[in-house]
């Protein structure tokens, strides 16, 4: 039986031998949880590239509170549970005072209880589900628009599209379902008929069955909400199956340039709701910020198609750093308090937070700008 002891002792030794790299305290760490692999990896990587531009820019200007900032980037693998694991690691392991993440609404919603539990604020850069800011989590600071905001903004221009009957093909998660719900509500409010609402798994690549149903529904417009990878597939397969609907994508993750390069002619005629239009930075509320960001992106030889996502990371980190500066210390509670008062000139526009959700534990929501672009003959043009 002495053997029993021995193996346990060995295991214990292994445990003790796991030593953590000592953390240097001359930097302020910012946790980032993004999907770097998996179904929506492309978008996550673009966001991180944008965030890195902000990091370098801030550090080149001397950092914040006399210290450099350091992004600790974790891959949430396009999965809500992994998103929780990254939050756990960033907050408990790396002791970051503030986070940015987690791209999809589903991942963000998954992370939110951890923010409550440990009391760490998170800037939400992409997620659009209404639930995020209405569930009473005071650690949430969202700079991206909700699906409702996006639908409302689109509603002012819906007349230009002449829609009679709309169908939906959305990714099967909080983001897609939320978008379908809000847009359908808005359209019905305008007297437009809503046909089929089809969902697709985030990992699905063969969408022929859903498209056959959309085709059979007899609508004239198809709203698509998903990541750019899946939108590419939908456009290609819709073309193959002769689905004649006019296409409108929502959610701002459609990267029109990537669609043009990967879906080719199938992308022609499609319309896209975006939160940054890098082809026309002069139209942004802060043209100098937008132009500088686009220039830096190009200088780094990054994929132009990623700009429509990359700005989110840039704006998010800028917002966080403004919060840290206003707080005067890298403390979660202080940053949370300070973020309420920040005014940031971002790529999308001027970032400032309004209150949303149940009284006493409101979440913070920014009111961003929405753009619509159209792909014509392989080129992006303003609507």
């Amino acid at each position, binding site marked *: *039986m*002495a*053997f*029993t*002891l*021995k*193996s*346990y002792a*060995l*295991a*214990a030794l*292994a*445990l003790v*031998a*796991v030593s*953590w*790299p000592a953390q240097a305290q001359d930097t302020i760490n910012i946790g980032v949880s993004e999907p770097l692999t998996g179904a929506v990896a492309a978008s996550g990587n673009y966001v991180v590239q944008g965030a890195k531009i902000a990091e370098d820019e801030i550090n080149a200007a001397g950092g914040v509170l006399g210290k450099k900032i350091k992004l600790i980037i974790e*891959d949430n693998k396009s*999965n*809500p*549970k992994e998103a*929780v*694991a990254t939050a*756990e*690691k960033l907050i*408990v*392991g790396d002791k970051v005072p503030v986070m940015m993440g987690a791209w999809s609404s*589903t991942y963000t*919603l*998954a992370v*939110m*209880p951890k923010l409550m*539990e440990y009391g760490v604020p998170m800037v939400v850069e992409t997620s659009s589900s209404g639930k995020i800011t209405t569930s009473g989590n005071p650690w949430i600071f969202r700079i991206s628009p909700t699906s409702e905001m996006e639908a409302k903004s689109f509603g002012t221009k819906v007349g230009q599209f002449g829609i009679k009957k709309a169908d939906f093909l959305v990714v*099967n*998660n*909080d983001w897609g*379902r939320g978008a379908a719900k809000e847009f359908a509500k808005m359209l019905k409010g305008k007297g437009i008929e809503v046909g089929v609402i089809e969902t697709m*798994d*985030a990992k699905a690549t063969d969408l022929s069955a859903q498209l056959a149903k959309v085709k059979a529904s007899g609508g004239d417009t198809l709203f698509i909400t998903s990541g750019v990878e899946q939108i590419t597939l939908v456009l290609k397969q819709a073309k193959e199956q002769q689905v004649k609907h006019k296409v409108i994508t929502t959610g701002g993750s459609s990267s029109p340039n990537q669609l043009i390069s990967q879906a080719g002619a199938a992308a022609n005629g499609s319309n896209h709701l975006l939160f940054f239009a890098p082809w026309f930075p002069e139209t942004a509320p802060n043209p100098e910020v937008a132009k500088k960001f686009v220039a830096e992106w190009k200088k780094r030889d990054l994929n132009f198609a990623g700009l429509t996502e990359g700005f989110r990371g840039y704006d998010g980190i800028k917002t966080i750093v403004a919060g840290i500066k206003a707080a005067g210390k890298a403390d979660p509670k202080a940053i949370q308090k300070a973020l309420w008062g920040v005014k940031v000139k971002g790529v999308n526009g001027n970032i400032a937070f309004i209150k949303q959700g149940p009284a006493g534990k409101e979440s913070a929501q920014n009111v961003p700008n929405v753009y619509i672009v159209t792909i014509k003959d392989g080129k992006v043009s303003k609507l």
Partner: protein
Amino acid sequence: MNRRLIEFGVVLFFASVPFWLGNLYYLHILITTGIFIIAAMSLNLLLGYTGQLSLGHVAFFGIGAYTSALISIGFDLELTDTYTFVFEPKPVWFSFLCGIAFAAICGWLIGKISFKVRGAYFVIVTISFAEVVRLVALNWIDLTEGPMALNNIPPFTLGIPGLWELTFFKKEPNYWLVLALCVVSFVIVRRLVQSRAGRAMIALRENESLATSVGVDVTKYLVLATVISAGMAGAAGGLYTHYIRIVDPDVFLFIYTVTMVIMVITGGKGTLLGPIVGGLIFGILPEALRGLAGPEVQWVIYGILMILVVYFLPGGIVPALSNWWRQREDNQSTSSPGDAAPGTAS
């Protein structure tokens, strides 16, 4: 008794970990490792003792997790247009037991069905079962929230309702809870394999026709092993769900079964300590290697490691070490007949 004392000491040592470890993140790793060790122990009962390569084991883990989560947060199901079945939230300890029970029932059902076939067929049936369960969890959105995941699952609570209650928000109580269930699982498996039932399972693994010739009922014992194994895996799933407090359909991914298989094979299938040693290695190694290699590279290493273990150490680490130890002991004294524990290397 010397042996009892050592075992007690080992448990005491592990129980003392939160007092001196000092880093909550390490504790978090230990908790998830412990949960996987329970799952690996349950798989070992099937894979190691009955010799059935069940590659759908994660289904029971996930069923336990989902059942316990749903019962603790409540759910409603629109059964017909006019009638909606509303299930009120129940206390966590109760939901946890329900998770175990439901996983065990599923184990019974699957055992009854899949032991009609063996070998490659059995393996594929078990994989298919896990995959079907995953797709149900993904698509039955009314019940499971599908890819949106079940969120805000309550943590464990302990105490007398109304008088005194302790909610397991913190890491330490969760750690002790997992440790306690590890010990319970270990004791159950040990009692089982050192009894009539366990010997019947081992006999089936060693020589099925000989086993039946002395009266061992094949189906009965394979199903019994599956039921107990599924219940234990369900318990691990319940622990997981109330600790992590979120569960999504990816909990059913094949890779988690593979993780358990690697733990059992490397540690030593059909040994009591194998899953513990394998579980500790593969629970802690990813964290230890994190600075050195990305997750992909790590998984490449684990895959190759598994191949090497099957080639060069087919029994796993524990039997190899125990043989080495026994040979040393044999040089000093000879043991009396019949004292070695059956089918174990401890």
